């Protein structure tokens, strides 16, 4: 902002940075490649994608003209797409609640010097290293929908434990099938949420707990008034990270149910199918809708991060 000082006579005043005193041409040059690349591959392509979504372009050929919001209107009047959105919502809610609860519980169990903590931590965390495609291989087997004598996977296990009532058709159920996909997702990422909460717990100064205890706070009051408030930034990060991952769910569904399975359909799988059909406009419109959904979650977060950075 200080560059408004006329520079003809004097050397331009250097901008007041945190460090102040050095020129800003060099750092701008250093970051310029990234700025250009992100500008093109993120913002440019988002613009181009929106443009495509407004075209009448439903096969491999060029656009047949401007279509306005027709593609979006078609999607929102299409029961299949509404079903996809509903699936996505159900999946996200389940995934979020599941990972947050399990992650918190595990962190809470491990928080106070548990013996073998590092072993448990490693076990809970390891599924995160595995790709959704690889875990999909085993989960497709575990979530086999056959019941009774032909049952395999988890249904078989339930049967042999005399828990037959737990047997269910998993992801093939038309109403709740999508929730079965959330099971492996929760398996994979609860450990990550645990790691976040564990860091949160460790970040609470011991004096704070001591002070609360000396003031006569009960265990519940300690959590209610000291621990939970201290953990809320961590919980928010976890919600942002898991939430945005969840909205992009694709690999797991492809690996477990396959792209054409109706009961586990979400916008991302529909987008891929429309793409393979050459319906680029519809494919682009679905992509844009996904972006808008993610933006609802992410933009407020980015804005608040930005404000915090400014204040620092």
């Amino acid at each position, binding site marked *: 902002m200080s560059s408004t000082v006329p520079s003809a006579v004097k050397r331009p005043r250097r901008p007041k940075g945190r460090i102040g005193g050095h020129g800003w041409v060099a*750092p701008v040059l250093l970051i310029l490649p990234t700025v250009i690349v992100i500008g093109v591959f993120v913002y440019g392509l988002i613009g181009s994608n929106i443009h495509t979504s407004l075209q009448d372009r439903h096969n491999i050929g060029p656009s047949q003209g401007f279509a306005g919001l027709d593609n979006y209107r078609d999607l929102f009047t299409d029961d299949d797409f509404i079903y996809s959105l509903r699936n996505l919502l159900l999946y996200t809610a389940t995934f979020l609640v599941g990972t947050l609860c399990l992650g918190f519980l595990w962190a809470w169990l491990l928080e106070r010097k548990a013996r073998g903590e590092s072993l448990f931590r490693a076990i809970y965390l390891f599924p995160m290293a595995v790709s959704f495609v690889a875990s999909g291989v085993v989960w497709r087997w575990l979530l086999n929908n056959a019941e009774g004598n032909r049952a395999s996977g988890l249904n078989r296990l339930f049967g042999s434990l005399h828990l037959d009532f737990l047997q269910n058709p998993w992801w093939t159920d038309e109403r709740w099938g999508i929730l079965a996909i959330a099971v492996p997702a929760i398996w994979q990422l609860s450990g990550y949420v645990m790691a976040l909460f564990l860091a949160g717990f460790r970040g609470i100064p011991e004096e704070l707990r001591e002070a609360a205890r000396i003031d006569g706070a009960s265990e519940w009051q300690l959590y209610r008034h000291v621990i939970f408030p201290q953990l809320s930034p961590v919980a928010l990060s976890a919600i942002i990270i898991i939430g945005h991952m969840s909205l992009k769910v*694709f690999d797991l569904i492809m690996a477990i149910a396959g792209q054409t399975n109706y009961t586990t359909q979400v916008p991302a799988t529909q987008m891929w199918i429309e793409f393979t059909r050459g319906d680029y406009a519809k494919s682009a419109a679905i992509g844009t809708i996904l972006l808008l959904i993610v933006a609802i979650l992410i933009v407020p977060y980015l804005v608040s991060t930005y404000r915090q950075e400014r204040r620092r």
Partner: protein
Amino acid sequence: MSTDAIPAAVASRVPGQRSRGIARTLKYVLLIIFALVVLLPAYVLFVTSFKGLGDATPANAWKLPQVWETAGWSRAWEQLGPALGRTFAMVIPASIISSVLGSMNGFVLSKWRFPGADIVFTLILFGMFIPYQAVMVPLVQLMGNLGVPSGVPSLIVLHVVYGLPITTLIFRNYYAGVPVELVEAARVDGAGMLRTYASIILPISAPAFVVVLMWQFTSAWNDYLFALFFSTSRNGPVTIALNFLASGQLQDYSASMAGALIASVPTLIIYILLGRYFVGGLMAGSVKG
């Protein structure tokens, strides 16, 4: 509690200790049960991969193999071997390039700032969260126009480009914790930006590099979405080959499970060896945001 603290403490000493003992036992019982549940899929993968074709029946689903066979492993290896090589050829350059760029960006955004650095950082960060579906249609066209060949070359470019936001974020947060005086001292000594970066910042960056390289390696290795759009089963990475193997009409469970294990070995090794750094880095990257 505190009003009758002394008599209560004396009187309830033994029962209090007992209930604490029960709580401890309960805690470990829970921890062990959860650990077993988490390990259950790993057991299935391991056991099934050693079963013969006739042994992988529903009735034997949860049992150990009747005969430990490695035929499934060799069938999986046949199909995944070439793809594994391609995945290494893609992941190694992709993670190195995006880490180096991220390190320079992080340095500039935290220690050698320029006007508007915060807004530039926020705009870069947004790239981390976008669903790639929102750019995929024009991206396929752009890569075609740029003439980047399908398969490994395309995937290197994409993992570098879309990896930049997170690598920048992690390095920036790491460098934010480096004392300003270090950089100031170098500046007073007359060092320029690149000298300062190379002689002051780079030598202390090893922990951040470990985290970022691991992160990039894992996410590029495990990627399926870009691979699906930008490669085929002939030139694609191991996720494509594995899905091809596992989704065949004949359900070859032992080969699929062996394949899933083969495809996961590199990232699992990295986690086991360097997991501690990884967790630490995730926190730096996410808690601070």
